[in-house]
């Protein structure tokens, strides 16, 4: 129940405390509630909600003459366009190529997620069945590459792939993406697999199921929520990635993140960049909704 006092509840049933003191406590509780909730709310509304609104507004404006955004209304002395327009949306939706690049980015993110899953699952399975000490050590070694700066992990692949002439190719991009996201898939999978009751598997074995059957009919279904959590943790960031395609990819490996980045930092066509960002946001929200519904269905 929203806003219900939790701390002073016992006063209501306490015959010793006077009504006056109870009301004073209630007021203190309400003030506390305000003090604790207002700063984070304020900060987030100001630095999250407002910027999001600005982004929507920006997508409805013209690009400024020297970059940035054109003014909202015409003032004397400013020549050029001003005001609101649907031109950016017409441009984005009128040409299928942008949906294409979004789909292509989603495809790359999907392949990345799939490969991460295939590589992470056996590892997570192994770790989950180890004794406690070994488990913690192995998990630590999975997280450790995160100790290395994200860009440096990409740079490592530039060094490795360069001499083999594999740089500037889709292969390089996928390897880079998988490498950067792999630990993120291992952790949720491992957390989930660790909770599986070993007795279930023993029972299945006793009933005559061999290893693959045990896995496919028991372990795998039980781990679905872990799979979805890990997949979301990989797919969503991968979708918006631009550093990996930029440093490792070729002319045809551009993802939607690269296009958005270019609009803001090079072409200076901010309205178009904002429109693309909104396109990406909608896609991410759709994916999040879809996976949330799937996970919920799994848990019930």
């Amino acid at each position: 129940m929203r806003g219900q006092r939790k701390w002073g509840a016992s006063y209501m049933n306490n015959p010793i405390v006077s009504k006056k003191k109870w009301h004073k406590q209630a007021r203190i509780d309400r003030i506390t509630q305000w003090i604790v909730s207002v700063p984070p709310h304020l900060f987030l509304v100001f630095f999250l909600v407002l910027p999001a609104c600005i982004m929507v507004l920006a997508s409805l404006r013209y690009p400024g003459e020297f970059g940035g955004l054109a003014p909202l209304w015409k003032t004397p002395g400013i020549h050029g366009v001003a005001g609101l327009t649907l031109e950016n949306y017409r441009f984005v939706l009128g040409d299928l190529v942008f949906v294409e690049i979004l789909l292509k980015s989603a495809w790359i993110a999907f392949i990345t997620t799939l490969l991460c899953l295939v590589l992470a699952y056996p590892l997570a399975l192994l770790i989950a069945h180890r004794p406690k000490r070994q488990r913690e050590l192995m998990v630590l070694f999975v997280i450790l590459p995160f100790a290395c700066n994200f860009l440096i992990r990409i740079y490592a692949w530039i060094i490795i792939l360069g001499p083999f002439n594999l740089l500037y190719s889709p292969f390089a991009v996928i390897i880079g993406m998988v490498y950067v996201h792999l630990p993120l898939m291992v952790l949720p999978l491992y957390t989930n697999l660790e909770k599986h009751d070993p007795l279930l598997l023993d029972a299945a074995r006793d009933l005559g199921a061999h290893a693959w059957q045990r896995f496919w009919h028991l372990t795998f279904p039980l781990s679905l929520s872990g799979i979805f959590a890990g997949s979301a943790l990989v797919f969503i960031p991968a979708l918006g990635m631009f550093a990996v395609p930029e440093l490792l990819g070729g002319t045809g490996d551009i993802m939607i993140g690269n296009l958005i980045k270019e609009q803001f930092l090079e072409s200076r066509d901010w309205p178009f960049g904002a429109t693309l960002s909104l396109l990406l946001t909608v896609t991410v929200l759709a994916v999040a909704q879809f996976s949330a519904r799937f996970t919920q269905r799994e848990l019930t």
Partner: protein
Amino acid sequence: MRTSATLWSIALLVYMFLYIPLAVVVLFSFNNSELNAQWVGFTTRWYTVLLEDSDMLAAAGNSLLIATMSSVFSTLLGTMAGIAMHEYKFRLLPALVLAPVAMPEILLGIALLLFFRQVLDLTLGFWSILIAHMTFSLGAVAMIVQSRLTGMDKNVVEAARDLGANPWQAFRYVMLPLIMPAVTAGFLVAFTLSIDDFVITFFNAGVSIKTLPLQIYSMIKVAVTPEVNAVSTLLMAVTLTLIALASRIVPDAIHKFRTD
């Protein structure tokens, strides 16, 4: 339970996949070749070059300063948010808190860029980076604090109130010690997120201030001498130490407060 050889071999391959590139980076930081394409010979001069590189040191200093300030403030706000989410069951706050964590970073970076330039007309620099870092760190801290609170025994705090403590005292002497491990973990997570952040900083840094990831990015694009490898190796060593310390601190903190 018997674990098959296939599982072990795949696991080993994955570990190799994770670590061989890092080993290459470290190895080539000792390469005596400016172009760093093939191994020429062993040298430690790139580390000396690195320590004299004032740009790099300035970037490191900036990163540290921003990370510290960002983690302090976002731990404060994040703890408040975690408590608020737990105690008062708002509908909006969880969404607000989770959004920066769940969205691709590029979206948050750009939204903030637009906000800073269009609404605040703020020159991009120290403050824009700081605020940007706080926005995504806040969520991480809040989530950690909240999950710890759900496991906590409610009655303890209520008992404190019954005994006459005001909310502040109840928090300071009862709740805070209990959630301290989460607060510390949140602080460390916020610090790591901030010091390593590339995408959001990339859009909000402006020209005058450089953080370490931005400095590395410009080096990767232009001058790929082994100095980049050297800075990577040092960074890995530093973060490794921090993680090692952290993994000892959190269990220690839990132990300490449980025995108090």
